């Protein structure tokens, strides 16, 4: 079985090739979406519903049904799971009983200690007893949505916790002996200065998280905060200020011994998120739950195919009740689509993409134009090609999307 050989740096050669897509060789990343929140945050456009906690028990049943169908019909009971990620929404909203039922249902024989098993949690709903329950279930990583240590910013974002609660929560996690935890921090917040962000970052680092995700606030037009920005009620920091934050973030994290292994993710050695790495290396993953997305390679779809579950609770319930995985509509990727996905995900990683693996998977001919373009961009310092890999330079990282657009081949 091709397993990630190291935690921080799964070899690029692990990129599955069409000919190697035998099911028994598949190490799967498993994602479970918990689309429930007490209240929806003002910037959030994820699949999540507020005030529907009463539907959680049924929802867990549907997730378990879906998983059973996929195991039986798609995986032929043969896949091995390398990572589990319980994301949301707010997974910590689930009671201990609910969480136990879900995890035990997914892994009747328990979670293998070699697996990375993450649960997302929010400060307002995480309790010591929930943490204990997670440990008991074999969950070995917790990712907590701190976002900011400023009460004003937390309120603006529509978060339910205070800065004080955030600090208590992090202390609680550390006291409970979690060796692997992560926190989310946001920047580029309305009215936030470079100094404001440095204070937030400094405070975050004080808790010595092994992993830190930092997201620049991005607003879609449909969310309340996005509408407020559109009508000028709030003002995002100017681009120059955000670039300053990004530069300081890089510098500070490096000086604290973190590796900036992905656009928005930093890790102490050995603590990169293995589950998320699956997304960025075109490894197969199964997403369970409303709005969840899967990626899988089969003989009928050698470049892989995605499928996306219905986002609404009722739509998802309807599908899960079919008790058949065949009901999932797959969209197989073309060669070019798969190449684009390989570039847009792989170049997010600091280590970039292995040129050899790319060529083996997509063919020398298809890679040629990409490398030609890369050589031009490399001459201007946007990317580099040495040591057999193609990667974006620190100077190009803020322009990743533009550079990927340059690199992808024309149709």
């Amino acid at each position: 079985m091709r397993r990630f050989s190291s935690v921080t740096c799964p070899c690029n050669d692990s990129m599955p090739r069409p000919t190697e897509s035998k099911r028994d060789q598949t190490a799967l990343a498993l994602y479970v979406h918990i689309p429930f929140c007490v209240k929806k945050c003002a910037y959030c456009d994820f699949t999540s519903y507020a005030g529907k906690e009463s539907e959680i028990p049924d929802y867990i049943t549907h997730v378990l049904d879906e998983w059973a169908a996929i195991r039986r019909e798609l995986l032929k009971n043969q896949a091995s799971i390398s990572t589990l990620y319980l994301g949301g929404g707010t997974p910590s909203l689930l009671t201990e009983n609910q969480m136990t039922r879900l995890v035990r249902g997914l892994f009747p024989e328990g979670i293998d200690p070699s697996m990375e098993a993450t649960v997302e949690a929010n400060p307002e709903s995480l309790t010591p007893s929930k943490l204990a329950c997670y440990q008991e279930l074999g969950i070995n990583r917790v990712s907590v949505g701190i976002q900011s240590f400023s009460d004003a910013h937390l309120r603006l974002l529509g978060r339910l916790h205070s800065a004080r609660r955030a600090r208590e929560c992090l202390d609680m996690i550390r006291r409970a002996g979690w060796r692997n935890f992560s926190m989310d921090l946001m920047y580029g917040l309305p009215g936030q200065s470079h100094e404001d962000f440095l204070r937030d970052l400094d405070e975050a680092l004080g808790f010595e998280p092994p992993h830190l995700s930092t997201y620049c606030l991005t607003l879609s037009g449909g969310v309340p905060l996005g509408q407020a920005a559109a009508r000028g009620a709030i003002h995002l920091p100017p681009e120059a200020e955000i670039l300053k934050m990004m530069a300081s973030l890089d510098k500070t994290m490096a000086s604290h011994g973190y590796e900036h292994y992905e656009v928005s993710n930093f890790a102490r050695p050995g603590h990169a998120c293995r589950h998320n790495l699956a997304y960025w290396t075109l490894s197969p993953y199964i997403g369970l739950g409303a709005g969840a997305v899967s990626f899988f390679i089969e003989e009928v779809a050698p470049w892989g195919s995605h499928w996306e579950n219905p986002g609404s609770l009722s739509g998802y319930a309807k599908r899960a009740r079919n008790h058949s995985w065949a009901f999932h509509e797959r969209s197989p990727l073309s060669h070019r689509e798969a190449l684009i996905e390989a570039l847009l995900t792989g170049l997010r990683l600091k280590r970039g993409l292995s040129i050899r693996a790319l060529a083996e998977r997509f063919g020398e001919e298809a890679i040629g134009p990409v490398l030609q373009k890369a050589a031009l961009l490399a001459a201007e310092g946007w990317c580099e090609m040495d040591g057999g890999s193609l990667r974006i330079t620190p100077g190009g990282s803020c322009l990743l999307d533009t550079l990927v657009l340059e690199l992808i081949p024309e149709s």
Partner: protein
Amino acid sequence: MSVQKHIRNFSIIAHVDHGKSTLADRLLEKTNTVSPREMKEQFLDKMDLERERGITIKAQTVRMAYRARDGQEYLFHLIDTPGHVDFSYEVSRSLAACEGAVLVVDAAQGVEAQTLANVYTAVDQGLEIIPVINKIDLPSADPEKVKQEIYEIIGLDPSDALLISAKTGTGVESVLEAIVTKIPPPSGDPTHPLKALIFDSWYDSYQGVVVLVRIFDGRVYKGMNIRFMSTGKTYEVTSVGTFAPHQVFLDALGPGEVGFLTASIKEISHSKIGDTITSVKNPADNPLPGFKEAKPMVFSGLYPVDAGKYDDLKDALEKLQLNDASFRFEPETSLALGFGFRCGFLGMLHMEIVQERLEREFELELITTAPTVRYEVIKTDGEKVVVENPIQLPSPQKIQAILEPVMLGTIHIPSDYVGTVLKLCEERRGVQKEIKFFSSNRVVVTYELPLNEIVIDFYDRLKSSTRGYASFDYEFLAFKPANLVRLDVLINGEVVDALSLIVHRDKAYAKGRDLIKRIKQFIPRQLFEVAIQAAIGSKVIARETIKPLRKNVTAKCYGGDITRKRKLLEKQKEGKKRMKRVGRVDIPQDAFLAILSVEG
């Protein structure tokens, strides 16, 4: 063969929307030329495009048999005319085929400038005019006021004006009777040498070119050898006939008759509108008067958005030209846009129609460069060159003088808007010739206007500044010298040929500044700084800078985001492919249209 004195040849003259096509439809119905089953609304407007725009591009003709109140049967030839200023020459030839015209005026809107031009042409050609006031069923109809206008503006006796509603059919009989009693029968001698006026022609893939003719003298018949007098080309007639409204084949056409002939003609340019057809064996001494070569007045470059569609565009242009002798094109290369064609049009509407047909009928996506006019340049060595593309303008030191086409423009407006219109005309370097006030609160303003100043947005500005009340008509006057310069646009130091303009020196600075400001809005930030400059010769007169892109990165990209992001990238890549590249700068096609909205 019909008796000449029972023939009536006439046109209907009307402003757009005043009901010409509806009246034509009623005439077809009342004479049982078209059965109700066949009757599609506005039968004569064949092409979709015409139907949509409510205008007629190609002249149509139809023969009708009408039994009049005097008990005799008359043969009517209704010769439809194109309805826009761009086609005024075609209109004049269609009118030359008639002895009379029915002038249709909307009972609510009154006389409009475009109508006037055609009415004056008809009067000049000695046609009998039957004034008809249409839409009398409208609540806003004011026939008395319109009668007064007909008298004051056109000088016709309004007491004869017929009051009708083509929509309901009211009064249509009186129009038919007036055609019989007021319009004289055609003259002409069947024994004289053949003189047939070409007033339209089109290409038919089965018959070759179909030529619409009005016979003035002699006869034309199948098997006859004919000569086109302006080109000297000779052909053997393969068929003659008429449209009633479907094609009907006849043995011959005689004096006064209107119909078609075919002669295995492959090139529409061999049968020029206004030319005279005569007999090879027994030729006429002189052609009919009034022949003018239809010359394109407005030029622009047409380029395929997708360079791979060049051959498709060429095929499409060739097909269009089969039916449009006034449309011209030749290959042209632009550094910015690649391979395309320089096209000549009669005017702006003609240009828009061609573009629309290319996009709609041939499904081509086009980039159109700013329309320009034809300049005559006298070089210092005395040589005269014609410039139809700004980039061909010789270098300033080699130019002795530049002459530009000047038009005589007639604008018809309610008196409230005189000030606005005079201001607009002055801004456009107009020279006032005449202002005529009529008691009916209407004013006719006549200006000499450089065509260069009216090809871009003049009509739109005129319409918007008069709340749509103005109507505008123009005709070519003369080439006149003017202080003109070429304004170039440079992007990162490279001249973008497709954005060059010839402008009056006094306006060059303002136009240059405005133009590059507009272009800037269309060019996305790139990985490097982009300088946009406006220059006259080597002198830069304005500059705008597009700062380089500094941040463009998606913060979150996990499972569900990947497909969305990929689709977005694919869309952006597709968009980029359609952009044109100058040096290293990708320029969206919209930037090339920025020129059209530059303030005069």
